[in-house]
């Protein structure tokens, strides 16, 4: 087992250039600090504006670190970002974006149900929820370039597909959480003449988020597991790298070890996510 270091290294980081590995370490740190920041925000330790600003900075800096700009950091082609770090990055980049976007769609569905954009969105979300994720990924990789004449890399296709898929599910979760809000809240809001978008932001949204945390975390865990599917459209994430290794004769007999490593990694990630959910649930208290 002298090559176990090589195996773990390849499953984790894949084809990322070896001199640039420190960038991936910083991305991992950014992911952790973002979860920590979210907990801090939930405990009212930092105000909303700071939280939004910090989240934006963290997301953009992690994107910048991963791909570089050719000036300060070397440019990394998207196909070199591979291994388990790709799964983490896909999850990290799709979850905040999809959550923020689905808050907007949730507003549309609750307060503007008669608008045509809302109708379109509802029908699209229904279709997306009824098909498997691979169909969506196939659609984006095969049909979208034909429609727009834009070259879409597989990484971009995977990220777009995951975000769209996640939005369709999260909006449903938010809708359910909104129905669970006590009717007294709406009556009190009406008595204070708080209506429209102000009511949504100050009264509905905090309660929606609090009510929906368990099922939201469930959806996130589902997404983390679904990031393994990007190997079917040809991205070399951890599972793709594993298949590459097994295809080689010298590692053919180590497949139990390799699968155990992958399973342990995914299990750890899901476990951290559910732990985060439990902490978040305790942290959010409205008095």
């Amino acid at each position: 087992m002298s090559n176990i270091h090589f195996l773990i290294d390849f499953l984790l980081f894949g084809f990322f250039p070896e001199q640039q590995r420190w960038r991936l370490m910083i991305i991992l740190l950014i992911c952790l600090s973002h979860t920590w920041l979210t907990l801090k925000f939930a405990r009212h330790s930092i105000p909303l504006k700071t939280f939004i600003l910090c989240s934006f900075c963290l997301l953009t800096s992690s994107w910048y670190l991963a791909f570089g700009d050719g000036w300060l950091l070397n440019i990394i082609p998207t196909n070199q970002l591979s291994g388990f770090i790709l799964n983490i990055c896909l999850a990290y980049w799709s979850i905040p974006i999809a959550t923020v976007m689905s808050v907007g769609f949730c507003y549309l569905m609750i307060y503007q149900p008669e608008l045509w954009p809302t109708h379109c969105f509802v029908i699209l979300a229904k279709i997306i929820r009824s098909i498997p994720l691979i169909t969506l990924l196939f659609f984006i990789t095969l049909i979208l370039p034909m429609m727009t004449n834009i070259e879409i890399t597989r990484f971009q296709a995977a990220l777009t597909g995951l975000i769209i898929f996640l939005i369709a599910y999260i909006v449903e979760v938010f809708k359910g959480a909104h129905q669970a809000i006590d009717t007294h809240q709406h009556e009190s809001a009406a008595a204070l003449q708080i209506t429209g978008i102000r009511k949504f932001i100050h009264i509905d949204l905090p309660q929606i988020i609090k009510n929906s945390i368990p099922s939201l975390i469930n959806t996130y865990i589902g997404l983390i597991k679904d990031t393994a599917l990007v190997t079917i459209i040809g991205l070399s994430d951890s599972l793709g790298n594993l298949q590459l290794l097994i295809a080689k004769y010298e590692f053919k007999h180590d497949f139990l070890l390799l699968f155990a490593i992958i399973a342990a990694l995914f299990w750890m990630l899901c476990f951290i996510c559910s732990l985060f959910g439990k902490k978040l649930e305790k942290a959010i208290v409205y008095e």
Partner: protein
Amino acid sequence: MIKQSINGLFSIIALTTLAILLIKLNQNINHQNLEFGFDFLFSQSGFDIGDTWIAHTHDQTYAHAILIGLCNTFILAIACVLLSTLIGIFFAILSTNHSRWLKLLSSAYINLFRNIPLLVQILFFYTSILYWLPPIEETLQFADIHLSNRGLFFPKAPSIAFLPLLLIPLIFIKATSFKNRKNLFLGLIIIWGVSLFFYDWQIPTRTRFSLSGGGQLSIEWFTLLIALSIYSSSYIAECIRGGIHAIHKHQTESAKSLGLNHLQIMIKVILPQAVPIFMPALLNQYLNLTKNISLAIAIGYPDFFGITAGTILNQSGRSLECILVVICIYGLINTISTYFIENISYPKWKNHV
């Protein structure tokens, strides 16, 4: 006024975008010397599907191939539903046991398989089955049943022999009492079992490179059956556990005072009452399972998705039509079952509690 202008603006922008996209799409399709249309579905497919329940040869149409794929998906789905429900009920009952170790076992099972991606599990089972089972030359043999890394070969009776089994639903509908039903069921099974001896069985015989004759279940089918059943059973066990916990504690106590043991309490008292509570969630899981079968494309089993968006798409080059067919059929399956879940199953059972 504002709403109307938003509607108008949206419809203008959306329609123009859609028109531009469709024109570009049409240009690109014409560029490949193709024309949009579903006529190609009725031309010859030109490929054989090896692993099916109904044969498909290369001179039949693409539409036939898609139907064969659907048939494969549904048969696999039914088998997985049965197996995963059995395993799920087993672990759900285990988790309500008083023994701490059994509880730990069941929670370990549920947490382990729920948190590992399904694709990893499918590939794991596939690789390990291919690795551990012997090649076709030296099969594991039990009587006339052969097991090798090409699949399970077994003697097959003609399909007429299985017709009497269609009477089973009739027994469940017509029989008046539990005892009556049990006797009729046992009688039918015994008569059917005896009758099997009078048919011509096709026995797998060894040819030069393989085994021929008899029935065959491929390794891919087994892999999917095992992986999907284990994965969904962990979800189903959680659903059923939730339903069991929702039943009032008095039920268990009164059953205990009547002298029933733990297993009897669960099967005869608690589970029948918990059915209407966990049924919607359970049906949802079955729907998810049917969608998850599309992952069969990773190991090359010819299910509906694999045939339509894999083989036919690559062979005819008609990506748009194939993806549209997939979306429409999955949408149809989903709409029908959602209607069933929401309108038929739940209120009817709910009234019984």
